[in-house]
Protein backbone atom coordinates (compact mmCIF):
# COMPACT_ATOMS: atom_id res chain seq x y z
CA UNK A 1 0.00 0.00 0.00
CA UNK A 2 1.30 3.46 -0.86
CA UNK A 3 -0.18 6.90 -1.07
CA UNK A 4 -0.44 9.49 -3.81
CA UNK A 5 -1.92 12.86 -2.89
CA UNK A 6 -3.73 11.30 0.06
CA UNK A 7 -5.13 8.41 -1.98
CA UNK A 8 -4.23 4.93 -0.81
CA UNK A 9 -3.11 2.74 -3.71
CA UNK A 10 -2.32 -0.97 -3.64
CA UNK A 11 -0.80 -1.50 -7.07
CA UNK A 12 2.50 0.11 -7.97
CA UNK A 13 1.85 -0.33 -11.66
CA UNK A 14 0.34 2.60 -13.55
CA UNK A 15 -0.91 1.60 -16.99
CA UNK A 16 -1.35 3.59 -20.18
CA UNK A 17 -4.50 2.91 -22.20
CA UNK A 18 -3.20 3.53 -25.71
CA UNK A 19 -2.47 1.27 -28.70
CA UNK A 20 -4.25 -1.87 -27.52
CA UNK A 21 -5.69 -4.19 -30.17
CA UNK A 22 -9.20 -3.58 -28.79
CA UNK A 23 -11.11 -2.11 -25.87
CA UNK A 24 -11.81 -5.61 -24.56
CA UNK A 25 -8.10 -6.43 -24.52
CA UNK A 26 -7.39 -3.17 -22.71
CA UNK A 27 -9.95 -4.09 -20.07
CA UNK A 28 -8.44 -7.55 -19.74
CA UNK A 29 -4.97 -6.02 -19.32
CA UNK A 30 -6.22 -3.68 -16.62
CA UNK A 31 -7.67 -6.69 -14.82
CA UNK A 32 -4.54 -8.82 -15.15
CA UNK A 33 -2.25 -5.99 -14.10
CA UNK A 34 -4.28 -5.11 -11.03
CA UNK A 35 -3.52 -1.45 -11.71
CA UNK A 36 -5.63 1.23 -10.07
CA UNK A 37 -4.31 4.22 -12.00
CA UNK A 38 -4.55 4.55 -15.78
CA UNK A 39 -3.44 7.37 -18.03
CA UNK A 40 -5.79 8.92 -20.56
CA UNK A 41 -5.62 11.75 -23.06
CA UNK A 42 -7.72 14.35 -24.81
CA UNK A 43 -8.06 14.50 -28.55
CA UNK A 44 -10.32 16.17 -31.06
CA UNK A 45 -13.74 14.56 -31.34
CA UNK A 46 -13.63 11.41 -33.35
CA UNK A 47 -16.14 8.85 -34.48
CA UNK A 48 -17.99 8.26 -31.23
CA UNK A 49 -15.84 5.30 -30.10
CA UNK A 50 -14.44 7.52 -27.35
CA UNK A 51 -17.77 7.32 -25.52
CA UNK A 52 -17.36 3.55 -25.08
CA UNK A 53 -13.76 3.96 -23.99
CA UNK A 54 -14.57 6.50 -21.32
CA UNK A 55 -17.63 4.63 -20.07
CA UNK A 56 -15.59 1.43 -19.77
CA UNK A 57 -12.98 3.18 -17.62
CA UNK A 58 -15.65 4.77 -15.47
CA UNK A 59 -17.24 1.37 -14.90
CA UNK A 60 -13.91 0.00 -13.69
CA UNK A 61 -13.76 2.73 -11.05
CA UNK A 62 -10.10 3.54 -11.68
CA UNK A 63 -8.09 6.63 -10.83
CA UNK A 64 -7.67 8.51 -14.08
CA UNK A 65 -4.45 10.36 -14.79
CA UNK A 66 -4.98 12.59 -17.84
CA UNK A 67 -1.88 13.54 -19.77
CA UNK A 68 -0.91 16.54 -21.85
CA UNK A 69 0.80 14.33 -24.42
CA UNK A 70 2.12 16.04 -27.50
CA UNK A 71 1.99 19.56 -26.07
CA UNK A 72 5.05 21.54 -27.04
CA UNK A 73 4.34 24.84 -25.31
CA UNK A 74 3.41 25.94 -21.82
CA UNK A 75 0.15 27.45 -23.04
CA UNK A 76 -0.91 24.28 -24.88
CA UNK A 77 -0.09 22.10 -21.90
CA UNK A 78 -1.88 24.34 -19.42
CA UNK A 79 -4.99 24.66 -21.60
CA UNK A 80 -5.06 20.90 -22.13
CA UNK A 81 -4.76 20.36 -18.37
CA UNK A 82 -7.74 22.65 -17.75
CA UNK A 83 -9.84 20.81 -20.31
CA UNK A 84 -8.77 17.48 -18.79
CA UNK A 85 -9.67 18.59 -15.28
CA UNK A 86 -13.22 19.38 -16.33
CA UNK A 87 -13.69 16.38 -18.59
CA UNK A 88 -12.23 13.71 -16.34
CA UNK A 89 -13.27 15.39 -13.11
CA UNK A 90 -9.82 15.11 -11.54
CA UNK A 91 -7.12 17.56 -10.57
CA UNK A 92 -4.43 14.98 -11.30
CA UNK A 93 -2.44 15.65 -14.46
CA UNK A 94 0.53 13.92 -16.05
CA UNK A 95 2.25 17.02 -17.31
CA UNK A 96 4.15 16.59 -20.56
CA UNK A 97 5.79 19.50 -22.31
CA UNK A 98 7.74 18.01 -25.17
CA UNK A 99 10.98 19.71 -26.17
CA UNK A 100 12.22 17.45 -28.93
CA UNK A 101 10.06 15.72 -31.53
CA UNK A 102 12.48 12.92 -32.30
CA UNK A 103 13.23 11.70 -28.78
CA UNK A 104 10.09 13.14 -27.11
CA UNK A 105 12.48 14.49 -24.52
CA UNK A 106 10.69 16.81 -22.10
CA UNK A 107 11.35 20.54 -22.23
CA UNK A 108 12.52 21.19 -18.65
CA UNK A 109 12.01 24.96 -18.83
CA UNK A 110 8.47 24.69 -20.15
CA UNK A 111 7.73 21.88 -17.71
CA UNK A 112 8.68 23.94 -14.67
CA UNK A 113 6.75 26.98 -15.92
CA UNK A 114 3.61 24.98 -16.70
CA UNK A 115 3.83 23.04 -13.43
CA UNK A 116 4.01 26.29 -11.48
CA UNK A 117 0.86 27.66 -13.15
CA UNK A 118 -1.07 24.45 -12.60
CA UNK A 119 0.02 23.85 -9.02
CA UNK A 120 -0.95 27.41 -8.13
CA UNK A 121 -4.41 26.60 -9.46
CA UNK A 122 -4.80 23.45 -7.39
CA UNK A 123 -3.60 20.76 -9.79
CA UNK A 124 -1.76 17.67 -8.55
CA UNK A 125 1.04 17.54 -11.07
CA UNK A 126 2.82 14.33 -12.11
CA UNK A 127 5.70 15.76 -14.15
CA UNK A 128 7.11 13.72 -17.03
CA UNK A 129 10.81 14.54 -16.84
CA UNK A 130 14.31 13.18 -17.25
CA UNK A 131 16.46 12.15 -14.30
CA UNK A 132 18.01 15.65 -14.05
CA UNK A 133 18.50 16.44 -10.36
CA UNK A 134 18.38 20.20 -10.86
CA UNK A 135 15.05 20.05 -12.67
CA UNK A 136 13.77 17.70 -9.96
CA UNK A 137 14.80 20.14 -7.25
CA UNK A 138 13.07 23.04 -9.02
CA UNK A 139 9.89 21.04 -9.49
CA UNK A 140 9.83 20.16 -5.81
CA UNK A 141 10.48 23.79 -4.88
CA UNK A 142 7.42 24.97 -6.78
CA UNK A 143 5.23 22.37 -5.11
CA UNK A 144 5.42 19.09 -7.02
CA UNK A 145 4.83 16.18 -4.64
CA UNK A 146 5.78 13.37 -7.01
CA UNK A 147 8.40 13.02 -9.75
CA UNK A 148 8.24 10.88 -12.88
CA UNK A 149 11.60 10.51 -14.63
CA UNK A 150 11.78 8.51 -17.84
CA UNK A 151 13.66 5.24 -18.12
CA UNK A 152 14.34 6.03 -21.80
CA UNK A 153 12.40 7.74 -24.59
CA UNK A 154 8.63 7.17 -24.74
CA UNK A 155 7.64 4.01 -26.56
CA UNK A 156 11.25 2.98 -27.21
CA UNK A 157 11.24 -0.12 -25.01
CA UNK A 158 14.90 0.54 -24.28
CA UNK A 159 14.51 0.01 -20.55
CA UNK A 160 16.55 1.98 -18.02
CA UNK A 161 19.39 3.66 -19.90
CA UNK A 162 20.74 5.67 -16.97
CA UNK A 163 20.49 3.52 -13.88
CA UNK A 164 23.02 5.68 -12.06
CA UNK A 165 20.87 8.78 -12.64
CA UNK A 166 17.77 7.08 -11.28
CA UNK A 167 19.68 5.75 -8.26
CA UNK A 168 20.93 9.26 -7.54
CA UNK A 169 17.35 10.56 -7.66
CA UNK A 170 16.27 7.92 -5.18
CA UNK A 171 19.20 8.74 -2.93
CA UNK A 172 18.61 12.50 -3.10
CA UNK A 173 14.82 12.55 -2.70
CA UNK A 174 14.21 9.85 -0.13
CA UNK A 175 10.72 10.96 0.90
CA UNK A 176 9.32 11.84 -2.53
CA UNK A 177 7.26 9.29 -4.47
CA UNK A 178 9.27 8.45 -7.59
CA UNK A 179 7.65 6.76 -10.56
CA UNK A 180 9.56 5.60 -13.62
CA UNK A 181 7.60 6.75 -16.63
CA UNK A 182 8.32 5.79 -20.23
CA UNK A 183 10.80 3.56 -22.01
CA UNK A 184 10.08 0.35 -20.11
CA UNK A 185 10.23 -2.63 -22.47
CA UNK A 186 10.25 -5.81 -20.46
CA UNK A 187 9.21 -6.94 -16.99
CA UNK A 188 12.82 -7.09 -15.81
CA UNK A 189 13.15 -3.33 -16.55
CA UNK A 190 10.26 -2.67 -14.19
CA UNK A 191 11.67 -5.04 -11.59
CA UNK A 192 14.99 -3.20 -11.73
CA UNK A 193 13.31 0.17 -11.18
CA UNK A 194 11.57 -1.23 -8.13
CA UNK A 195 14.72 -2.93 -6.83
CA UNK A 196 16.51 0.43 -6.70
CA UNK A 197 13.71 1.83 -4.60
CA UNK A 198 11.32 3.48 -7.01
CA UNK A 199 7.75 3.65 -5.77
CA UNK A 200 5.99 2.81 -8.99
CA UNK A 201 6.26 2.22 -12.72
CA UNK A 202 4.14 3.76 -15.46
CA UNK A 203 4.15 1.93 -18.76
CA UNK A 204 2.01 1.47 -21.83
CA UNK A 205 3.58 0.17 -25.05
CA UNK A 206 5.40 -2.69 -23.30
CA UNK A 207 1.98 -4.21 -22.60
CA UNK A 208 -0.14 -2.94 -25.48
CA UNK A 209 2.39 -3.91 -28.17
CA UNK A 210 3.18 -7.34 -26.69
CA UNK A 211 2.10 -10.38 -28.68
CA UNK A 212 -0.19 -11.30 -25.79
CA UNK A 213 -0.96 -8.08 -23.91
CA UNK A 214 -2.95 -9.58 -20.99
CA UNK A 215 -0.17 -12.10 -20.27
CA UNK A 216 2.37 -9.27 -20.38
CA UNK A 217 0.23 -7.19 -18.03
CA UNK A 218 0.32 -10.08 -15.59
CA UNK A 219 4.07 -10.40 -16.05
CA UNK A 220 4.60 -6.74 -15.23
CA UNK A 221 2.40 -6.97 -12.19
CA UNK A 222 4.48 -9.86 -10.86
CA UNK A 223 7.79 -8.20 -11.77
CA UNK A 224 6.89 -5.01 -9.97
CA UNK A 225 5.89 -6.93 -6.87
CA UNK A 226 9.11 -8.96 -7.07
CA UNK A 227 11.25 -5.86 -7.46
CA UNK A 228 9.53 -4.15 -4.57
CA UNK A 229 10.08 -7.17 -2.32
CA UNK A 230 13.71 -7.23 -3.38
CA UNK A 231 14.13 -3.59 -2.40
CA UNK A 232 12.39 -4.03 0.94
CA UNK A 233 14.32 -7.19 1.72
CA UNK A 234 17.72 -5.59 1.10
CA UNK A 235 19.78 -6.98 -1.76
CA UNK A 236 23.14 -8.55 -0.92
CA UNK A 237 26.32 -6.81 -1.98
CA UNK A 238 28.10 -8.17 -5.05
CA UNK A 239 31.42 -9.92 -4.41
CA UNK A 240 34.38 -10.48 -6.65
CA UNK A 241 34.99 -13.97 -5.35
CA UNK A 242 33.05 -17.18 -4.85
CA UNK A 243 31.57 -18.03 -1.50
CA UNK A 244 29.96 -21.46 -1.12
CA UNK A 245 26.35 -21.29 -0.08
CA UNK A 246 26.38 -24.84 1.26
CA UNK A 247 28.41 -25.17 4.49
CA UNK A 248 31.84 -26.71 3.98
CA UNK A 249 31.98 -28.14 7.49
CA UNK A 250 30.59 -31.65 7.61
CA UNK A 251 31.06 -32.35 3.94
CA UNK A 252 31.67 -36.10 3.43
CA UNK A 253 35.16 -37.16 2.38
CA UNK A 254 36.52 -33.83 3.76
CA UNK A 255 40.27 -33.98 4.19
CA UNK A 256 40.99 -30.31 4.75
CA UNK A 257 42.75 -29.80 1.40
CA UNK A 258 42.09 -30.05 -2.32
CA UNK A 259 44.48 -32.97 -3.03
CA UNK A 260 42.79 -35.70 -5.05
Amino acid at each position, binding site marked *: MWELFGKKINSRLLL*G*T*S*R*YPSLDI*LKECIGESGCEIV*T*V*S*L*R*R*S*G*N*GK*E*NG*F*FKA*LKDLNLNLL*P*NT*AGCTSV*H*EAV*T*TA*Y*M*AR*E*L*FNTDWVKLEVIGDDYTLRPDPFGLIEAAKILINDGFKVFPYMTEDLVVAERLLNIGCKVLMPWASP*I*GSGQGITNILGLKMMRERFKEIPLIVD*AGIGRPSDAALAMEIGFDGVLL*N*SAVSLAVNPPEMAKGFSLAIKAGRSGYLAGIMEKREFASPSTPVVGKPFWHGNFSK
Partner: protein
Amino acid sequence: MILIVNGEKIEFKDEGNILEVINSLENKSEYFAVALNKTFIPKSQYLNIRLKENDQLEVVTPHPGG
Protein backbone atom coordinates in the same frame (compact mmCIF):
# COMPACT_ATOMS: atom_id res chain seq x y z
CA MET B 1 -20.46 32.68 -40.28
CA ILE B 2 -17.24 30.70 -40.79
CA LEU B 3 -15.76 29.00 -37.74
CA ILE B 4 -12.61 26.90 -37.45
CA VAL B 5 -13.71 23.80 -35.56
CA ASN B 6 -10.97 21.33 -34.71
CA GLY B 7 -8.85 22.82 -37.47
CA GLU B 8 -11.52 22.67 -40.18
CA LYS B 9 -13.45 25.59 -41.65
CA ILE B 10 -17.17 25.10 -41.11
CA GLU B 11 -19.93 27.43 -42.23
CA PHE B 12 -22.84 28.05 -39.88
CA LYS B 13 -26.08 29.66 -41.06
CA ASP B 14 -26.75 31.46 -37.84
CA GLU B 15 -24.69 32.96 -35.11
CA GLY B 16 -24.88 31.17 -31.82
CA ASN B 17 -23.36 30.49 -28.47
CA ILE B 18 -20.88 27.68 -27.87
CA LEU B 19 -23.51 25.13 -26.90
CA GLU B 20 -25.63 25.86 -29.98
CA VAL B 21 -22.64 25.47 -32.26
CA ILE B 22 -21.55 22.22 -30.62
CA ASN B 23 -25.07 20.81 -30.82
CA SER B 24 -25.11 21.46 -34.54
CA LEU B 25 -21.90 19.51 -35.16
CA GLU B 26 -21.83 16.03 -36.65
CA ASN B 27 -20.01 13.32 -34.66
CA LYS B 28 -20.90 14.82 -31.32
CA SER B 29 -19.54 13.09 -28.27
CA GLU B 30 -21.36 12.65 -25.01
CA TYR B 31 -18.26 13.84 -23.17
CA PHE B 32 -16.27 16.84 -24.30
CA ALA B 33 -14.37 19.94 -23.25
CA VAL B 34 -13.79 23.13 -25.17
CA ALA B 35 -11.13 25.73 -25.88
CA LEU B 36 -11.96 28.89 -27.78
CA ASN B 37 -9.10 30.67 -29.51
CA LYS B 38 -6.71 28.50 -27.49
CA THR B 39 -8.27 29.40 -24.13
CA PHE B 40 -10.14 26.85 -22.02
CA ILE B 41 -13.85 27.62 -21.66
CA PRO B 42 -15.60 25.98 -18.71
CA LYS B 43 -19.02 24.42 -19.31
CA SER B 44 -20.65 27.10 -17.18
CA GLN B 45 -19.74 29.66 -19.86
CA TYR B 46 -21.11 27.88 -22.94
CA LEU B 47 -24.38 29.81 -23.01
CA ASN B 48 -22.77 33.19 -22.33
CA ILE B 49 -20.21 33.22 -25.14
CA ARG B 50 -21.40 33.96 -28.67
CA LEU B 51 -19.04 32.89 -31.39
CA LYS B 52 -17.72 35.31 -33.97
CA GLU B 53 -16.47 34.97 -37.52
CA ASN B 54 -13.19 33.00 -37.71
CA ASP B 55 -13.24 31.96 -34.08
CA GLN B 56 -11.23 28.82 -33.47
CA LEU B 57 -13.03 26.18 -31.48
CA GLU B 58 -11.37 23.04 -30.17
CA VAL B 59 -13.74 20.32 -29.00
CA VAL B 60 -11.90 17.46 -27.34
CA THR B 61 -13.06 14.13 -26.01
CA PRO B 62 -11.58 11.36 -23.83
CA HIS B 63 -9.10 9.18 -25.70
CA PRO B 64 -6.63 6.46 -24.81
CA GLY B 65 -3.29 7.85 -23.69
CA GLY B 66 0.02 6.75 -22.28
